[in-house]
């Protein structure tokens, strides 16, 4: 739900940007990147991106639109596994940004995927920490209500890798369809803890408390991005991928908490 609203807000903001083009001088202009300026990029660009990219790509989309007047970036944020499946089924996407190499490989249509970021896991608990969670080992405590992502979703697979390192068996009460649904359940206080990405904890602000997992216990996942063979807007797709991989893109991703590729 939140994601849909977020997307709607991003679209509304995009519409406002386009509508107010004549007098908009207040937008943070990151400057035209040399690769894209004058390349005649225009029209809608449809980006299928992992749910954990909701905030950072939302920002990148707005900056891209400001740098390339005449373009609108439309996002579909969901679990990478779900996105890979819908692209395989023929969903009209220009760009796919996945939260794991596994899901990128499922899309045979992807042209030359490039890793643009890395992410690690973190424990999210409600601000009052009702389960008194302090470390990963606490998640195996009986009676503690834990939400995880499903195993086929990157955040679920990476969380399992963390548990495997510690030889822990965590019995969750529910398996979220994507990382944001796990985060929502933590925010609502319906679970005592959820294992999400470091970037999700940062994006949630004060609504959840993050408990960092020490590097030697943690696991990471890499984010590849690629244009798609059947892209309706190939020029726009290439420009957007270039923007994500540019220094401007890296700045936004680093601010959101992602590690470099």
């Amino acid at each position, binding site marked *: 739900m939140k994601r849909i609203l977020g997307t709607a807000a991003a679209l509304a903001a995009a519409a406002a940007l386009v509508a107010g083009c004549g007098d908009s001088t207040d937008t943070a202009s990151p400057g035209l990147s040399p690769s894209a300026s004058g390349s005649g990029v225009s029209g809608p660009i449809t980006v299928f991106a992992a749910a954990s990219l909701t905030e950072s790509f939302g920002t990148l989309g707005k900056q891209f639109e400001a740098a390339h007047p005449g373009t609108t970036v439309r996002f579909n944020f969901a679990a990478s596994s779900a996105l890979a499946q819908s692209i395989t089924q023929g969903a009209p996407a220009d760009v796919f940004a996945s939260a794991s190499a596994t899901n990128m490989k499922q899309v045979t249509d992807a042209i030359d995927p490039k890793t643009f970021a890395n992410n690690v896991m973190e424990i999210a608990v409600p601000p009052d920490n009702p389960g008194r969670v302090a470390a990963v080992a606490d998640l195996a405590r009986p009676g503690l209500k834990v*939400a995880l992502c499903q195993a086929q979703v990157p955040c679920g697979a990476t969380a399992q890798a963390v548990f495997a390192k510690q030889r822990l068996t965590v019995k969750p009460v*529910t398996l*979220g*369809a994507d990382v944001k649904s796990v985060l929502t359940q933590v925010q609502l*206080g*319906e*679970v005592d803890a959820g294992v999400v990405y470091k970037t999700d904890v940062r994006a949630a602000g004060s609504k959840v408390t993050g408990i960092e997992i020490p590097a030697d216990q943690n696991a990471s996942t890499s984010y590849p991005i690629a244009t798609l063979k059947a892209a309706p807007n190939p020029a726009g797709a290439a420009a957007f991928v270039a923007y994500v991989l540019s220094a401007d893109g890296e700045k936004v991703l680093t601010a959101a908490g992602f590690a470099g590729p």
Partner: protein
Amino acid sequence: MRRRSAAPWPLAVPALIAIAFLLLPLVGLVARAPWRTLPSLLSDPTVGQALRLSLVTATLATAVSLLVGVPLAWVLARVRFPGRSVLRALVTLPLVLPPVVGGVALFLALGRRGLVGQYLDRWFGLTIPFTPAAVVLAETFVAMPFLVVAVEGALRAADPRFEEASATLGASRWTTFRRVTLPMIGPSVLAGAVLCWARALGEFGATITFAGNFPGRTQTMPIAVYLALETDPDAAIALSLVLLAVSLLILVSLRDRVLRAGTGGRAGPPWRRA
């Protein structure tokens, strides 16, 4: 005189389009079914778990709906009080409310931090979300109005003279309800219960929101289908076939008894009467 069996083309052509539209997806499901791997796909233990959970929770949701929904229908149809039409609109709201919204609302009411749920948690240590009970509640919330609407319609259409006769003979309202009213509207109650059960069986949005998803505990068939589609489309088709078979079985076995007898032989089934 023209034969009346020939449909004029302005009606026949759209009707054919409607038939094709309704049946084509089902044909697609059957045509694309992985028949050869079907046994191995369906022997996965999570399939049995999901099917059992779906059947049990839908039946419990129907039982709860009968227990409190039939009395509610009676109150709406037989007791006059101010604000009755507003109340009727409110309790049938889940008919038109998107189920996901129902799930969110259930969280806010019965969740661990919810309006009522926080006291259940504090006083009794009871938390409802992510349990099979949450599945039953979500299904009941979405499905009960179907039963209420069906039964209330039947009560309004029932001839009041029988109840009046019962009353003049000295029967109390409760006895009259038990011995006269209930037998009279029995077929409509059954029809409503079947609709309610079918709606509960197919429930997805409120369930995944309020009860979450965990194999064997809260993962019902529709949720299993949806999630299987992300990883193994063949498994999703196999699961869909099972649900299709269950639905067909119910429809065929109850068709005569419900769709026709549900009228009490009078004015058509309640959902048609509306």
